[in-house]
């Protein structure tokens, strides 16, 4: 009981303390030091590490994070009239007590760099808009004999030392392995500018796991009643204890003990698998009706914001307006079959978004292939255009499976949006990377539960929505497929080298990375332009103010990028075989696969690899199993698993490797290459047969699902082991006679 009373009291003292704007820095630093160390929880007195953690490089004996945020409106005299400005104060303290057990931890904890002071206060006529941030640090070292040495933070150096901008850096003197470091960092921000007041600006995320063991962790927040607070306790994270003090401030407190360490494992999704807490707050002078609903969840509030983005601004429907040109007349547009209409509209959107240049792309031209669309904006625009065309459509709000879940959306960026058109065969429109196809669902959304919004247009500025939910389908393994065909022979000049001609076909999720790497920017632009019968690059550039004088610039840069792009084939081969290839030649894109109607990305190349052939007397042993590239090999520590398995997608890999048997030689070892393993999580099979003068190896590897429960990990390991065992297989080319 006494403990419960203590905490609000100390916060109250702190707030009064920090409200004093004119206290000199040194004096305030001393006050904070007294406050932080004087009111720390008993756990900050601990000096011993539990025996089971003796081998850890460092142990966090105690960690505390506190945040206080207050706001109040003040009258400010503006140029024309008086107005209200909100002064917000935010005080955060991160306090940690760490036992340093090795040199790695000593290195990590021995220096600190910080923005000591940043004063962005502006003055105009009678008005002064305060915007000041100060940082105060403190540290003490507890030696193994129990002696405590308070670090003189005055030994800091200032990397920047201006009146309004100071950056500090401190090397902790006297710190050694075996010591306990007890340090804190306090930030005090006071602002009247109105900036930085949103939930997003004040978002704090605490994952309840750490790289070091943490024995005790406390979180304490205090918010004045005018500050709106929303938080999420995700994946089983404990909830705050909430109360109010006499000033009606909201107090939130949480204490956690024995935080686990992160587990570094294959195929995880940390924000789905570790408990975490996300806390944010906002302050606004706007009337309550314009502010987030305090009784709604963060997702619901973000959904409301998304719905309010359905505003028909001038030019929002450029792709729709181009339909007439494509189809020849409004009548043709009207009479076009639904899937054809939607497809062309989507292509027009893609051309508009990815093939419009703004004059700033040439600094890093390869980056053009790595741009992504803003899905929420694009989905809203597409939905409005489809509605205008009379196409019933819905918007899906979805959180990527490699990030937070939909129910744990905190900020707008935590979710994406797609379009679903429910016809006999549903049509999905995703607004993602530059090579995403019509009716292709990005792998990271597959299998996710989405909120489905059915829009109804009231007027240009208002849409209403019916809401439902839907689960996004998961692509079958064959839709995410790599198929490789290799023609392999011993190099005539040096039989210990392999000459390889490789043809690669990729589709679905597995084509994206190579498409973006290997397709020249010019080819993508040409492809999308042809798709919609769009304007030539020069005409498009001339139509935009920023680029109208840059036709030569883009033409030159696109051509140069295409020439330079050839080296990316070498990078791709190196990535596949983990060695620098020699004599890379005949590189060619066979099919760019920019269209969903021709969806298989296909390219070819030839090259020479080293160190895959061993001479054995007159014979040769080929590391044939390595010609697929390396498959993942499990280590002993990977075999036990408690975390569910988030794979990138369900997928299939097929290889056909034809090795030319030199005249006078025969092949041996095919039996060992015949492997077959299958279970509900997938399959692995391989065969090797002699066909005339060639040894033909086929490999088929399938992961059936994109998600497996941890309980089924042993089944997955069977397949992973089978594949990695294949990697070890060899073929003997034996000299006859």
């Amino acid at each position, binding site marked *: 009981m006494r403990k419960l009373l203590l905490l609000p009291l100390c916060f109250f003292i702190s707030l009064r303390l920090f409200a004093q704007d004119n206290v000199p820095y040194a004096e305030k630093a001393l006050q904070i030091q007294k406050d932080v160390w004087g009111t720390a929880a008993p756990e900050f007195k601990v000096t011993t590490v539990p025996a089971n953690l003796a081998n850890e490089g460092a142990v966090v004996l105690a960690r505390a994070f506190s945040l206080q945020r207050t706001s109040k409106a003040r009258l400010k005299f503006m140029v024309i009239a008086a107005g209200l400005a909100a002064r917000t104060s935010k005080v955060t303290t991160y306090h940690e007590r760490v036992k340093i057990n090795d040199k790695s931890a000593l290195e990590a904890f021995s220096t600190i760099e910080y923005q000591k002071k940043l004063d962005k206060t502006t003055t105009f006529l009678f008005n002064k808009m305060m915007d000041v941030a100060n940082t105060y640090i403190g540290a003490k070292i507890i030696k193994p004999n129990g002696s405590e040495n308070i670090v003189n933070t005055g030994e800091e150096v200032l990397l920047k030392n201006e009146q309004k901008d100071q950056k500090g850096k401190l090397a902790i003197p*006297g710190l050694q392995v075996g010591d306990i470091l007890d340090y804190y960092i306090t930030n005090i921000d006071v602002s009247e500018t109105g900036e930085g007041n949103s939930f997003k600006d004040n978002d704090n995320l605490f994952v309840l796991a750490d790289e070091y063991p943490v024995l005790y962790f406390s979180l304490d927040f205090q918010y004045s009643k005018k500050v709106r607070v929303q938080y999420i306790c995700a994946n089983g994270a404990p909830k705050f204890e909430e109360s109010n003090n006499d000033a009606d401030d909201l107090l939130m407190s949480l204490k956690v003990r024995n935080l686990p360490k992160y587990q570094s494992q294959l195929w995880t999704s940390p924000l789905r698998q570790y408990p975490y807490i996300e806390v944010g707050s906002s302050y606004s002078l706007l009337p309550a009706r314009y502010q987030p609903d305090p009784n709604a969840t963060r997702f619901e509030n973000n959904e409301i914001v998304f719905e309010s983005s359905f505003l028909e601004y001038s030019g929002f429907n450029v792709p729709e307006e181009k339909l007439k040109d494509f189809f020849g007349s409004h009548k043709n547009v009207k009479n076009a079959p639904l899937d054809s209409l939607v497809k062309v509209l989507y292509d027009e959107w893609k051309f508009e978004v990815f093939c419009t240049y703004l004059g700033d792309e040439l600094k890093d031209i390869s980056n053009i292939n790595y741009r992504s669309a803003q899905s929420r904006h694009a989905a809203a625009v597409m939905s409005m255009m489809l509605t205008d065309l009379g196409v019933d459509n819905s918007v899906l709000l979805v959180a990527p499976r490699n990030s937070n879940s939909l129910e744990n959306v905190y900020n707008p960026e935590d979710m994406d949006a797609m379009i679903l058109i429910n016809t006999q065969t549903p049509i999905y429109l995703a607004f993602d990377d530059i090579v995403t196809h019509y009716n292709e669902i990005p792998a990271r959304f597959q299998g996710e539960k989405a909120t489905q919004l059915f829009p109804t247009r009231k007027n240009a500025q208002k849409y209403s929505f019916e809401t439902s939910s839907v689960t996004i389908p998961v692509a079958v393994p064959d839709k995410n497929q790599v198929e490789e065909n290799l023609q392999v022979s011993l190099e005539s000049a040096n039989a210990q080298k392999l000459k390889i001609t490789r043809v690669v076909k990729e589709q679905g999720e597995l084509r994206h990375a190579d498409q973006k790497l290997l397709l020249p920017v010019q080819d993508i632009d040409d492809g999308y332009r042809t798709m919609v019968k769009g304007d030539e690059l020069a005409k498009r550039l001339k139509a935009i103010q920023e680029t109208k004088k840059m036709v*030569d610039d883009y033409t030159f840069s696109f051509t140069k990028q295409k020439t330079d792009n050839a080296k990316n084939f070498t990078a791709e081969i190196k990535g596949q075989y983990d060695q620098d290839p020699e004599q890379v030649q005949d590189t060619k894109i066979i099919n760019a696969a920019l269209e969903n109607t021709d969806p298989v990305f296909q390219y070819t190349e030839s090259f020479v690899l080293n160190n895959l052939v061993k001479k054995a007397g007159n014979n040769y042993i080929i590391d044939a199993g390595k010609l697929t590239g390396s498959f993942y090999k499990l280590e002993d520590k990977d075999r036990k698993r408690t975390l569910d398995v988030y794979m990138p997608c369900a997928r299939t890999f097929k290889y056909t490797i034809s090795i030319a048997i030199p005249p006078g030689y025969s092949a041996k070892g095919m039996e060992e290459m015949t492997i077959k393993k299958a279970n509900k999580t997938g399959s692995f099979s391989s065969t090797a047969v002699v066909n005339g003068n060639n040894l033909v190896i086929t490999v088929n590897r399938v992961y059936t699902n994109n998600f497996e429960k941890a309980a089924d990990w042993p089944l997955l390991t069977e397949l992973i082991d089978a594949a990695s065992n294949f990697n070890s297989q060899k073929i003997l080319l034996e000299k006859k006679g």
Partner: protein
Amino acid sequence: MFKTFTSFIIASCCLAQVFAGPADSSATITLSKEKYTFVFNSKTNAVEVQRSIDNLYASNAYDVDLPIVENYNDEVTIDDVNCKIDDRTPKDFKPEYSYYSEGDIFYSDSRVCYFPLKLLKKNSKGEVTFKETILDPRYFTSAFFSDDQPVTSKEITFVIPRWMKVELKEFNFAGFNIKKATSYDEKTDADVITYTGYNLPAFKTEENSPGPTYIYPHIMVLCKSASAAGHNFTYFATLDDQYAWYKDLVKNINSNTGVISAKAKELTSGLTADMDKIKAVFYYVQDNIRYIAFENGIAGFRPEKADEVLRKKYGDCKGMANLTKSLLTSLGYDARLCWLGTNHIAYDYQTPSMAVDNHMICALNYKGKIIYLDATESYLGINDYAERIQGRQVLMENGDKYVLAHIPVPTTAQNYDYETSKLSITDNDLTGSISHLWKGEDKEMILSGLNSIKKENTDEAMTRYLSDNNSDYVIKELAISNVTSPDKDVTASYQVDMKNGVSVFSKAYYVDLDHKKEFINSAIKTDERKHDYWFDYKENLCRETELTLPLNYKVTGLPADLNIVNDDYEFHLKYTSAPGKLIYKKNILIKNTHLPIAKFAAWNKDIEQLGKAYNETIILKPVNE
């Protein structure tokens, strides 16, 4: 590390670190004019060097955004900076000035002035000018011809009044088209020396390459003395002058000798033998003082007080050398400070200059033998010397005079990476026991690695290292001795199961006894590499593997032995068949760490031979076949 002024750092650091990144071909410096004028400043009664830079750029592509970066510090001021693009000053031209963090230096007075040079069109012209003042000629040590971009024409002019004594030394001019012209300006009574270089390639970063003073054409500037306006100045006319300046900097750096003396006694308590005491002191500094460098102003040259380093438990090379010296001196030993340049620097003390040295260590004169103690090498034992200081000339304290000496150059025997294996065939696996031993810089590499990772991950990291990240190389019962002490060799032993280490075809075993194949991928890409290759340190790699033959099996095929021997390196692979067993021995020696471009072709040929030999297997067949 010490700091000096060198002109090559213009436009090459901060946003792009010094010599960082590939050579930039997006623009060319068509004409660069750099001028250095020695002047007497009557207000400060000091000689200064006025520097002007005028670079003309032409873009080779569109939307080229070059970071223009100019260093300055307490001894160099930037007085004026201008930029023009196609003859107009850009509207948004606003040079920024900020702190610059250099390498592993915690804090220094290095600052940068930077701004972007935006050349929007192909063949756009940019012009950048700086006017600077070097406040003390001692800090003016060199002028480089190359830049981050290729330079079509570079003019470096020195205006040296006859009251100023300066020597200019040319470095790395061979192979470059650089001309020199000298004239006399009566008006200023000055010699005007102009160097003009043509078609100079851009700086290019390459791993394991020599320092820039070995590679790029430049002029070393030796400011000796001046007699101006009735004032006489002596800079570094001779090495005596340089030593006197250094000596003056270190004369009052040991104040609280009581603390040092007490610590020295504590460290050597119970020890009687001199060498035990010396080791106790040296290893204490190595193990307990973190390397953190402060090079703020004169702190770049003056060591921190020994008692302060002891209190803070951190320091730079100077602080660590001074603490080592102070502790040893307090015990009655003859210990001294030594200045030296590491092998990153092409110069030695024949050319007195602050550019000659960048490091400080302690020398112990013990019974007439000099032992050099470099505590910044955290895991090298006493009498072992790091490659970077081997053979380097040192300027050693000797009262008012100095001693010039050289750090010994150990043979390859200092470093040792030894592995012995006893293996047998179990199904398709090779199984058995393996022992390792590391000495010298190999040991330092192992210990540095182990101590840079979390304690709880040590075994996993060591397993990855020993298996060469090969998960088919399964290690069990790993035991590592001595993971902290630099005074002892490091050993490791373990049981191994090399999965699929044997290929079986028709009862015949095909065995590959070499699973590491060191240097197999060490061929140098001669079409890309521009500079000599310098190995990290001398290699002495030995492997001895004994394979017990399976019962009723005989050796039917052995790879041929390989012996490549020259003055720089040796590769030896040898297979010996004995009753019931087979012995494979490998010895790779890198005797000369410097591999010049001229020897790349031979090196690649030898690496190819090594690769071929590695890729041959042993054949074992049943005795009755």
